């Protein structure tokens, strides 16, 4: 009885949230459509301005970052195109169009870095973590959890031999699914919190061995569009780590975090 009541409250709350969202979304939808119109007419700069207004309002989605990436590509700004595709990738990781465009954009990147490959289990884990968009993975984990608990409760209440037979099996299936999903979600959240990637935006960057202009020497150079991991930072400099584990310092303004 009580359970049902809570669920009802939950549903009402969801409706309220989305309802409130709809009320505000008019202007964003309008801007989005405007951007699309400009893009179709080949006015990429205007399209970009329209799309960026939505982002400036504090909203995001996979599609908007994808479209912004397209505009930048068309305008010849490969670094920003890749930056926005990477942002979209966080929200819609398995989108086919996004994958295709990111591949094309990366063709124009000069630096070819051979990543040091991880242990195969870690690779598999990665693939597992990033199969679904994050929010979808959340929802899925949560629903499996609710289902699992419901099965548990039903198991406590029923005395029928048939139902108990069914329920025990469902209990194990949903239990294992829940554990796997929780592990992958936790792993993903931890990784996302720990790892901040960035894209090089300057044409060419000389990477220094220390965060000073004079104290260090130039260790290697990178070019526009290369994705790097950020590590430590000082007020004007950040330490970057390449996929092949080269490390160096660059000025903050040459890159932007994804």
């Amino acid at each position, binding site marked *: 009885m009580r359970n049902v009541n809570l669920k009802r409250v*939950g549903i009402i709350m969801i409706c309220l949230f989305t309802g409130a969202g709809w009320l505000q979304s008019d202007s964003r939808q309008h801007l989005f459509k405007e951007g699309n119109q400009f893009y179709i007419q080949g006015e990429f700069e205007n399209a970009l301005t329209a799309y960026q207004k939505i982002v400036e309002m*504090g909203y*995001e*989605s*996979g*599609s*908007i970052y994808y479209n912004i990436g397209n505009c930048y590509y068309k305008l010849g700004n490969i670094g920003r195109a890749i930056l926005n595709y990477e942002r979209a990738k966080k929200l819609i990781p398995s989108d086919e169009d996004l994958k295709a465009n990111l591949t094309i954009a990366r063709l124009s990147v*000069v630096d070819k870095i051979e990543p040091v490959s991880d242990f195969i289990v870690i690779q598999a884990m990665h693939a597992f973590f990033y199969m679904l968009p994050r929010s979808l993975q959340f929802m899925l984990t949560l629903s499996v*959890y*609710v289902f699992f608990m419901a099965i548990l409760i039903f198991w406590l209440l029923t005395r029928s031999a048939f139902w108990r037979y069914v329920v025990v099996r469902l209990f194990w299936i949903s239990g294992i699914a829940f554990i796997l999903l929780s592990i992958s979600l936790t792993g993903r959240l931890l990784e996302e919190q720990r790892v901040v990637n960035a894209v090089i935006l300057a044409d060419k960057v000389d990477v220094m061995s220390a965060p000073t202009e004079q104290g260090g020497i130039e260790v290697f150079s990178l070019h526009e569009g290369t994705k790097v991991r950020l590590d430590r930072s000082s007020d004007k400099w950040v330490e970057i780590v390449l996929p092949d584990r080269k490390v160096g310092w660059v000025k903050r303004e040459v890159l932007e975090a994804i």
Partner: protein
Amino acid sequence: MMQARWLKFFNFILIFLTFSSIMAKDLSVKASVDKTVIDQYEQFTITVELAGEGANKAGNPQLPETDKFASFLGSGSSQNIQFINGKMSVSRVLSFHFQAEKIGNHQIGPVIVQHNGKQYETDPIDIEIKQVKGGRPSVSTQKQNKAIPEGSKDDLFLEAKIDKKRVYQNEPVTITYKIYTRLQVSSFGFTKEPETTGFWKEEYQLPAQPVTSKEIINGKQYTVATIKKQALFPMTPGKKTIDPLIITCDVRVRRRSRDPFGDFFSDPFFGRTEKMRVPSNSVIIQVQPLPETGKPDHFSGAVGQYTLKAWVDKSKVKTNEAITYKIKLEGKGNIHTLPDPEVNISGDFETYPPEINESIQRTTPPISGSKTYEYILVPRFAGLQKIDPIVFCYFNTKKNSYQTLKTDPIQIEVSQGDDTYAIVSSGASKEEVKWRGQDIRFIKTEAADFKKAGDVFYGASIFWLLISAPIAAFIGALGYRKHLNRLHGDVAYARERQARRSARKRLSKARSLLKPETQKEYYAEVSKALMGFLGDKLNMAEAGMISDDVKATLEKRGVHVSVIQKTFSVLESCDYQRFAPSDASESDMRDFLKRAEQIMSHLDRDLRK
């Protein structure tokens, strides 16, 4: 618009086709000989030409066995890169110089080149080595040569002279062969040239007609002519002996007659030509290794005196516009075997293998000249690009020390060009062919599901609700389960829990009998309800209930005395009404029911304490 797109597409096909054709002809190898009919002791050259994409990457050719009929003198190589209609063709030419030794017909076997795991072979070449006609006697005539008298040392001799006796490795020794004669030498030919293995040999150019001069030695006047001059670059340290050079001269000899008039006929026309074999002296050269002290790490083996220059033809270009980058090494020394300076050009440029040109001055010693490297660079990015300075290290024979030359760094201002077409790049650090014209996919037109940036799902209250609600439900269910279990296992608990319910059931049945006609049944039901209630509450069998026992138990459980009295009075009046009914009005009956209910609730309250 449409047309332009088609043109682009057509361009791709073209580019693709040309590339695939290059791919198909990755490497072709050809071998040739500069002449197929060769005089004995004459030099000939086997030229191996590698052409195609793989020319630079292919291994060095493996030469066939030629020891039986020729001796190896040395080798050289040159490279050539051409752009024709944007297509790059690379060719590498390697020349191998030999001296023909043995007369006869010979075959030069196939030259083998390894590339990408494949083996390329050239066709074998037939050559003929002939006996020398005229002045130069050949090996086969050496038997006759023995018959040729050696000229008297006084009248005719050949001197080999070296300018230095001690040299460093790769420092040239000039060896000059001079003929000293008091006789009339009408012509001469080289019979045997000394072996110069272990040396790189550069022949000086001498005038076709030897320049003669007069010299007086031991009071005798000689006519002197330089007939051969060589620069020898020793390749290995140690004591080296250069064997004598043997020439054969045609000498006019006056008839030595006792005839007192003989002098009268001293006219050359009456002279007789005699062949004379003239050997030179042999020379010894001490070759010392280059000093180890102060030898820089990047020393590559060049010896002599050099200067180094590097420059570009223009310092302001647009992207994808070619510039020429030249490096010139100039000086005295073994130009031909000069090691190539190490050139490091950043990946921001497309680079192609350089074109190398040599020019060597061989008229006056020392051997000098220049070597020029011409690179074609295509900048790929706008901005200020740098070309690193070139460092070249050599051993200076004048100062007897190692010296390092360094060019100035070059800066090139690159502005953005408008061409973004297919770029061919080479080298390991860069990518393969790029199809820049390939277009990205179209934008997303579906209205997007915007959400507040930075929102995290676990921040929403709904999330916590969905997490906690099942837990709460689970705890509830757990409690309920326990309760059910008790009902099953604990009779007293079960009866207790059911007491009111069954009593209420019976009372409602009694209520339906609330009529004067069913007075008896009515009181029976009330009695049963009350008795049942007591039985359930105290967990006693209804049938065997003795009022005293009940009373005692109730007292023990702390039920108030007045409640007990009331209970029993109700039960008694029930029995009375059942067995000796008096006429009771409906309202009396209702009151009675109320009393029974009241007692039950009192009992319930007191028993729970």
